[in-house]
C-alpha cells in the first residue's frame, strides 16, 4: 500500500518541476549555511568551513541528482526528453519529415484499409450476446464431392428444430427482397424471414416496441414486421409513431411491432437487413404453392446457441445421430429414386458462427490474403525508401553524434533516441494513414458493390484494427530505423572531433547498404508490376470478349406479377400487350421479353434427350434454356445461322419448337443437320417431356458467365416454355441512351396495369457487374504496382544522388585530370545498371516462384506469361534508368573546381 502511494507521488513528481527545484535548492542552501556556521563556531576559517561543508554534503549536484531520481520516474523522464529532442530534429528538416510521413501514411494506410476489410469480413465477432456460443448447422452429401451446403428447406428446419436438444435456442433465417412501392419502379428493402426465436436466441434488445417471439411464428399467422434500427432512422426518421403503423411489402401490409437495437445488422456478413418477417408469413407471399411444405425449395440457414454444458463434439455427435431420421422424414417425392436414396444418406454437420454467416468465406479469404501480401510489399518498399533517406541524413549528423558520445552518452542511449525518432515518424504516418484508410475502404466497398447487391460491412474502428495499426507503426519505425541508428552511432571520436568534415570519412563512398536497399526495392516493385500486369490483362481480355450479342443501349425491365395480383392465365396476354405497346414508344428500336437475361446470375438448365446416335453422357447433356419472344435475337443482335426464327405461328397450341445454338448442334448432332430433328427435356423423376422440334440455329452467345465456353443453349417460344413463376424480363433496345426513354416506358406499362412492380437496369451494366471481382483486382493491383514503382523510382533517384555527392571529390579529380563528361556519366551509370540488374534478376526469380498462386484468378493467361513478364521488366527498367540517369547527368556537368573544393 505504501509502495503504491509512493509510486503515485513519483508520477506526480513529473509535474511542477520548477517549483520543486527551487525548494530543493533552498533546502540545500540552508543546509550548507548551517553547516558552515557550525564549522565557524568550531574555529575553521570561512574558506575551510565552506569547503568542509561541501565535501561532507557529497557534492551539491550529485545530491540533487539523487533527489531527482527519487522524486520522479527517471526512465520515463528520459523517454520524454528523447521524444522532445526527436520532434525538434524532425522539425528542423521539414522536407525530409514531410516526404517520410506522407510515404508512411500511404503505406500504412493501405495496410490498415485491407486489414479493416479482413477484420470486418472474417474476424469481427457478431454484435450479439456471447457470439462464441453460436454454431451453424450444415449438411453434407457423403458421396464424392464433399461439398458442404448451408441451405435447408422448411420441412428440414422444422425437423432439426424439434429434434436437436443441444441448443438453448435455435433459429432459421432466409433472405428476401421486398418492394416498398406499390407499382411502377421498385424501391427495394432488404428483408429477412426469421423464425420466432431469432431475436431471443441472439440476445437482441428492442429500441422501440417489442421484438418477434415464438408466438408470432405459428402457421396461419397474418405476419408482423420488425425494423432494423438504421432502416427505422432512414425511412421513418426514427419517429416513435412508426411502431404501431404499417409497412407495405410487395403490396401486402404488415403491422410494425418494434425496432431492433442499434448496431445489429443481421447474422449474415456483407449485408444488413431492413425489415424482418416471421417465416409463417411466407404463406401470404407464396400463394398457391407455399414454400413451408415444399421439400425441395432451399432457402433457410439454420444456427443456434449451444447449451452451456454442451461441447462442439457433443453437438456434432447429436446432429449425426438425428440425421437419418431428419432426412428420411423430408424426402422430396418428385426426385429420381436414385437421388432420393442419396438424400437419405445426407448428414448434418456444424460450422462456427461467431463471426457471422458468410457463404463466400473461402473465396474472400483468398482474395484478401493476396491483397494483404501486395500491400505489405508496398509498405516494405516505402520502409526501404525511408531507411535509405535516413542513412543519407545520418551522415550529416555525424558531428552531433560524436559530440554526444564524447560528453558521456552511451551508444545504447543514442540508438534509443534515434529509434524513438523513427517511431515518431512512423506514428505520424500511421495517424495520417488511418484517415486515408477510412476513405480507402469506403471507396473499395463502392468498387465491389454492384447495382443489385450493395455490400455492407460494419467498418467501425475496433480494438483489433487500432492494435494492428499501432503494431505496424512501431514495427515499421524500428524496421527502417535500426540500420541507420546503428551505423550512425558507430563513430570514431577522435576523427570526428579533428576534422571539419561533416561526413564520416571512414564510410566507404560506395554506400553499400543503400545499394542493397534500392536493389531490393526494384525487385519487389517488379513482383508487384508482374502481378498487376497479369490481373490487368486478364480483366481486359474478359472485358473485350466477344459476347455474341450487342450490349449497347439495351434497357432491361423486370416485371413482378405477384404484386399486381394478375391471374396466372392472364400473364402471357399482359406481357404480350406490354411488349406490343412498348414497341411503338418513340426512341425504342426493338422490344422482346424472355425468362433469363444474359449474365444476370440466374440460369435455367435441364438435361436433354436427343434423337441422334451417340448422345452425350448424362452430365454433358445438360443444356441452358430460355423462353423468348420472336424479336429476342433481333433485340440482342444475335445472328440466326440456319432455319427460321419464332413467329406468330408458334402459339401455346402449335407443335413445340426450339432454336438451338452452334455448340448444341455440334455436341448433340455432330456431322448431321439438326433442323427438323426432335429432342425431349428430362423433368421430375426422369420423365421425358413432349417432343420438341428444332427449327433454327443461332450463333453462340454468353449466358451465365463470361468465363464459360462451350456450352449448349436452346431457346423456346415463351408461350410454350414451361411455367416459370417469376416475372418476365423485357429487353428494350433504344436508339438513344436508355435513361432518356425511361419515364415514357414506365407510363406505357402503367397504361396496361399500374400496379406491376418494375425494376430497371441496362444490359451494359449487368455485364459489367458480372466482372466486379476481376475489375477490383485489376484496379487495386494496378494501383499498388504504380505506387510501388513510384516509391522505387524516388528511392533510386535519392540513392544515386547521394552516391554522387559522396564521390564528388573523386569525380572532381577525374575531371580535372581531363576525363570527358561522357566518361563520368558512364562511370555513374555503371552503378545504376548494376543495381538495376541485381534488382530485376532477383525480382524475376521471386515473381516466377510466387505467381503460380494467382493462376485460378486469371483468365486467358498463364501465370508465367512471358509477354506480361517482359512488359513489366521493360517498364521497370525504363523508369528506373531514367531515375538513375538524372543525377548521373548532373554529376557529369559539375564544374571540377566546385567538386574539388567540397570538403
Amino acid at each position, binding site marked *: 500500500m505504501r509502495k503504491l502511494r*509512493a509510486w503515485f507521488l513519483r508520477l506526480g513528481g513529473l509535474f511542477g518541476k520548477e517549483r520543486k527545484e527551487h525548494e530543493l535548492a533552498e533546502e540545500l542552501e540552508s543546509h550548507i549555511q548551517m553547516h558552515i556556521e557550525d564549522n565557524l563556531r568550531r574555529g575553521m576559517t570561512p574558506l575551510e568551513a565552506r569547503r568542509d561543508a561541501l565535501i561532507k554534503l557529497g557534492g551539491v549536484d550529485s545530491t540533487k541528482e*539523487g533527489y531527482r531520481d527519487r522524486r520522479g520516474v527517471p526512465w520515463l523522464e528520459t523517454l520524454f526528453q528523447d521524444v522532445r529532442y526527436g520532434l525538434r530534429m524532425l522539425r528542423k528538416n521539414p522536407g525530409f519529415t514531410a516526404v517520410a510521413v506522407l510515404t508512411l501514411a500511404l503505406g500504412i494506410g493501405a495496410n490498415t484499409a485491407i486489414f479493416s476489410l479482413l477484420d470486418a469480413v472474417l474476424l469481427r465477432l457478431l454484435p450479439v450476446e456471447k457470439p462464441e456460443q453460436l454454431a451453424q448447422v450444415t449438411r453434407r452429401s457423403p458421396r464424392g464431392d464433399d461439398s458442404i451446403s448451408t441451405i435447408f428447406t422448411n420441412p428440414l428446419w422444422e425437423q432439426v428444430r424439434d429434434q436437436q436438444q443441444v441448443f438453448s435456442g435455435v433459429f432459421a433465417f432466409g433472405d428476401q427482397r421486398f418492394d416498398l412501392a406499390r407499382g411502377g419502379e421498385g424501391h427495394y428493402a432488404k428483408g429477412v424471414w426469421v423464425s420466432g426465436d431469432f431475436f431471443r436466441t441472439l440476445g437482441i434488445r428492442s429500441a422501440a416496441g417489442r421484438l418477434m417471439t415464438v408466438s408470432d411464428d405459428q402457421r396461419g399467422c397474418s405476419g408482423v414486421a420488425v425494423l432494423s434500427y438504421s432502416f427505422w432512422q432512414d425511412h421513418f426518421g426514427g419517429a416513435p409513431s412508426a411502431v404501431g403503423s404499417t409497412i407495405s411489402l410487395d403490396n401486402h401490409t404488415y403491422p410494425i411491432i418494434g425496432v431492433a437495437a442499434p448496431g445489429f445488422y443481421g447474422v449474415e456478413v456483407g449485408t444488413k437487413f431492413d425489415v424482418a418477417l416471421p417465416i409463417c408469413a411466407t404463406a401470404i407471399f407464396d400463394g398457391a404453392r407455399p414454400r413451408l411444405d415444399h421439400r425441395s425449395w432451399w432457402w433457410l440457414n439454420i444456427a443456434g446457441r449451444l447449451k452451456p454444458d454442451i461441447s462442439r463434439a457433443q453437438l456434432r455427435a447429436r446432429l449425426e445421430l438425428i440425421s437419418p431420421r431428419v432426412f428420411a422424414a423430408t424426402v422430396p417425392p418428385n426426385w429420381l429414386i436414385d437421388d432420393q436414396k442419396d438424400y437419405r444418406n445426407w448428414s448434418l454437420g456444424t460450422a462456427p458462427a461467431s463471426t457471422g454467416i458468410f457463404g463466400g468465406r473461402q473465396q474472400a479469404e483468398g482474395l484478401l490474403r493476396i491483397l494483404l501480401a501486395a500491400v505489405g510489399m508496398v509498405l516494405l518498399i516505402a520502409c526501404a525508401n525511408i531507411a535509405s533517406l535516413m542513412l543519407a541524413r545520418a551522415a550529416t549528423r555525424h558531428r552531433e553524434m560524436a559530440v554526444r558520445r564524447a560528453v558521456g552518452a552511451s551508444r545504447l542511449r543514442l540508438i534509443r533516441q534515434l529509434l524513438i525518432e523513427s517511431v515518431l515518424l512512423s506514428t505520424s504516418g500511421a495517424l495520417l494513414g488511418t484517415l486515408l484508410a477510412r476513405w480507402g475502404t469506403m471507396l473499395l466497398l463502392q468498387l465491389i458493390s454492384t447495382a443489385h447487391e450493395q455490400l455492407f460491412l460494419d467498418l467501425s474502428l475496433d480494438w483489433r484494427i487500432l492494435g494492428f495499426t499501432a503494431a505496424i507503426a512501431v514495427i515499421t519505425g524500428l524496421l527502417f530505423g535500426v540500420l541507420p541508428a546503428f551505423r550512425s552511432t558507430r563513430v570514431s571520436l577522435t576523427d570526428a572531433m579533428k576534422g571539419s568534415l561533416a561526413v564520416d570519412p571512414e564510410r566507404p563512398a560506395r554506400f553499400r547498404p543503400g545499394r542493397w536497399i534500392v536493389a531490393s526495392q526494384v525487385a519487389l516493385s517488379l513482383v508487384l508490376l508482374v502481378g498487376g500486369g497479369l490481373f490487368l490483362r486478364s480483366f481486359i481480355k474478359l472485358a473485350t470478349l466477344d459476347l455474341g450479342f450487342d450490349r449497347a443501349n439495351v434497357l432491361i425491365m423486370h416485371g413482378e406479377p405477384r404484386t399486381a395480383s394478375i391471374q396466372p392465365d392472364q400473364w402471357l396476354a399482359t406481357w404480350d400487350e406490354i411488349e406490343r405497346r412498348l414497341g411503338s414508344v418513340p426512341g425504342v428500336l426493338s422490344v422482346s421479353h424472355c425468362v433469363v437475361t444474359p449474365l444476370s446470375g440466374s440460369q435455367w438448365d435441364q438435361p436433354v434427350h436427343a434423337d441422334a446416335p451417340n448422345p452425350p453422357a448424362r452430365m454433358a447433356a445438360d443444356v441452358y434454356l430460355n423462353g423468348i419472344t420472336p424479336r429476342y435475337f433481333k433485340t440482342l443482335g444475335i445472328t440466326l445461322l440456319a432455319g427460321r426464327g419464332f413467329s406468330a405461328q408458334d402459339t401455346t397450341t402449335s407443335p413445340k419448337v426450339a432454336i438451338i445454338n452452334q455448340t448444341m448442334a455440334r455436341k448433340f448432332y455432330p456431322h448431321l443437320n439438326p433442323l427438323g430433328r426432335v429432342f425431349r427435356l428430362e423433368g421430375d423423376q426422369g420423365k421425358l417431356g413432349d417432343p420438341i422440334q428444332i427449327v433454327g440455329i443461332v450463333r453462340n452467345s454468353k449466358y451465365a458467365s463470361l468465363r464459360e465456353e462451350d456450352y449448349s443453349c436452346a431457346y423456346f417460344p415463351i408461350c410454350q416454355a414451361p411455367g416459370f413463376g417469376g416475372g418476365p424480363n423485357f429487353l428494350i433496345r433504344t436508339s438513344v441512351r436508355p435513361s432518356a426513354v425511361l419515364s415514357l416506358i414506365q407510363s406505357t406499362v402503367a397504361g396496361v396495369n399500374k400496379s406491376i412492380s418494375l425494376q430497371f437496369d441496362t444490359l451494359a451494366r449487368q455485364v459489367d457487374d458480372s466482372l466486379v471481382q476481376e475489375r477490383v483486382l485489376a484496379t487495386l493491383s494496378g494501383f499498388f504496382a504504380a505506387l510501388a514503382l513510384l516509391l522505387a523510382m524516388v528511392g533510386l533517384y535519392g540513392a544515386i544522388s547521394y552516391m554522387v555527392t559522396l564521390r564528388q571529390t573523386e569525380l572532381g579529380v577525374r575531371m580535372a585530370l581531363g576525363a570527358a563528361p561522357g566518361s563520368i556519366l558512364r562511370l555513374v551509370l555503371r552503378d545504376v545498371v548494376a543495381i538495376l540488374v541485381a534488382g530485376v534478376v532477383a525480382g524475376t526469380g521471386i515473381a516466377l516462384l510466387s505467381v503460380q498462386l494467382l493462376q485460378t484468378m486469371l483468365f486467358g493467361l498463364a501465370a508465367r506469361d512471358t509477354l506480361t513478364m517482359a512488359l513489366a521488366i521493360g517498364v521497370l527498367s525504363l523508369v528506373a534508368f531514367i531515375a538513375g540517369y538524372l543525377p548521373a547527368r548532373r554529376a557529369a556537368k559539375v564544374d571540377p573546381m566546385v567538386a574539388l573544393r567540397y570538403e
Partner: protein
Amino acid sequence: MGDKADVWQGTLALMILRTLDTLGPLHGYGIARRIEQTSDNLLSVNYGTIYPALLKLEQEGYVASEWGHSDNNRKAKYYKLTRAGRKQLAKEMWEWGQATAIVARFLSPKESV
C-alpha cells in the same frame, strides 16, 4: 581521523525515524549531524544521501515536511514523524531486536560444562 564505516543504506531510513522520534521535528542537516553523533563518529554519513532517503519516507507517508525557522532564524525545511511513521518505527525496531537476538544466540560463547 578514525576509521569510519560506510552507512548501510537500508538502515538509514530506520535511523532517521529514530532520530525524529527522539528529538522531535528537525531539519535535514540536524538529522544528519545527529546520526553522526549518535554513532559516536563511527559512521560516516554522506550528508547528501539523507535527502533522497527523506523524500522516500515522505512519499511513503512516514514523515511530513514543512518550512520553518531554525534557532538562528534561518529558513529551513523541518521533518516530523507521522503516526504511521511511529508505527513503522516500532515495527522495525522490534524486527531488528528479533534479528539480533537470534544471531546473538548463535554467536554466544559456549556454555561452560
